[in-house]
């Protein structure tokens, strides 16, 4: 995995895992690799990998079952909320860029539809 060394690495790995979950690449209830395996497969420090799971748990996106490992949450509502949050973030980023180019949300929307057609 390639990282932007200027941003916290745990955050980048966490975002990548979040993406896997909301796109369905990792299913609800699926077992996630252990902290050490995650560290090895991404080539990151084990403490950083542990942090990834701490933060994912704090966001309720995964849960650790004692002695079993870490699993993607089965609560579809949480996944949907994260997905929604992600979509809104993407749109906001897009609109911010459009605003810099002097476009309003309406004109941007028109352009998107035109692009689609």
């Amino acid at each position, binding site marked *: 995995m390639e990282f932007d*060394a200027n941003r*916290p690495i745990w955050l980048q790995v966490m975002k990548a895992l979040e993406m896997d979950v909301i796109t369905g690449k990792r299913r609800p209830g699926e077992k996630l690799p252990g902290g050490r395996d995650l560290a090895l497969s*991404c*080539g990151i*420090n*084990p*403490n*950083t990998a542990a942090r990834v799971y701490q933060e994912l748990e704090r966001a309720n996106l995964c849960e650790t079952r004692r002695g079993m490992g870490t699993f993607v949450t089965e609560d579809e509502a949480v996944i949907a909320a994260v997905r929604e949050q992600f979509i809104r973030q993407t749109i906001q980023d897009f609109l911010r860029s459009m605003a810099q180019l002097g476009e309003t949300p309406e004109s941007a929307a028109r352009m998107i539809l035109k692009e689609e057609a």
Partner: protein
Amino acid sequence: MLESKEVTKTFGAKTAVDHISLKLEKGHVYAMLGPNGSGKTTWMKLAAGLLKPTYGMVCFNGEQVSIESRKHVAYMSTEPYFYTWMTVKDVGKYYQDFFEDFSYDRYLKLLKQMELTEKLKTKALSSGMMAKLKIAVTMARDAQAYMLDEPFNGIDLLARDEIRACILSYATEDKLLLLSSHLVEEMEAIADRAVFISEGRLVECVDLEEMRTRQGVSMADRYRQIYGHTEG
């Protein structure tokens, strides 16, 4: 786990390590950074007990480094140091003879990972193969602390991922890893703390993720901030 108290080492009129005080804790991978000649190698040799400090001391688990600490600290020097008559197998046997925490099975596994065979003569190894052999034999010890001086030196780009994975696989929460390198980018993701040394003095010891969060600065950026003006 490893504590340096005001450690100083002079060679004649030259001060290689100048009052370095530093505490390294287990469960972390430390990157020791600084330009060539900044004192990294000398500090490691002091911590390995190969050099005797001119002033101050290095302690391992509260005791001054000694014969006892050598049983638990695996040190890999940057220079090749095996006897010239040795084969790869002899090197393993030598470690097995002297280190209780050495596992020959683990050594064989690491040799395979590094694509080395027991029959090879150390005299005939390329610098890259020698670098791999040093890592294999050092990591085949189940030590409490590992100090690797320039582990990526002489190892080509493709093999570095392999080496990183190998080093990481032994970085558990009860171990201490200290890696020195001038290849800063190689260490960015595997280290969680960095020790910056300049002209024999400690500049700072930082938590990397905290630095990225607070200042949006990578280890390499910080390196440039600290040494940029001196290296031009």
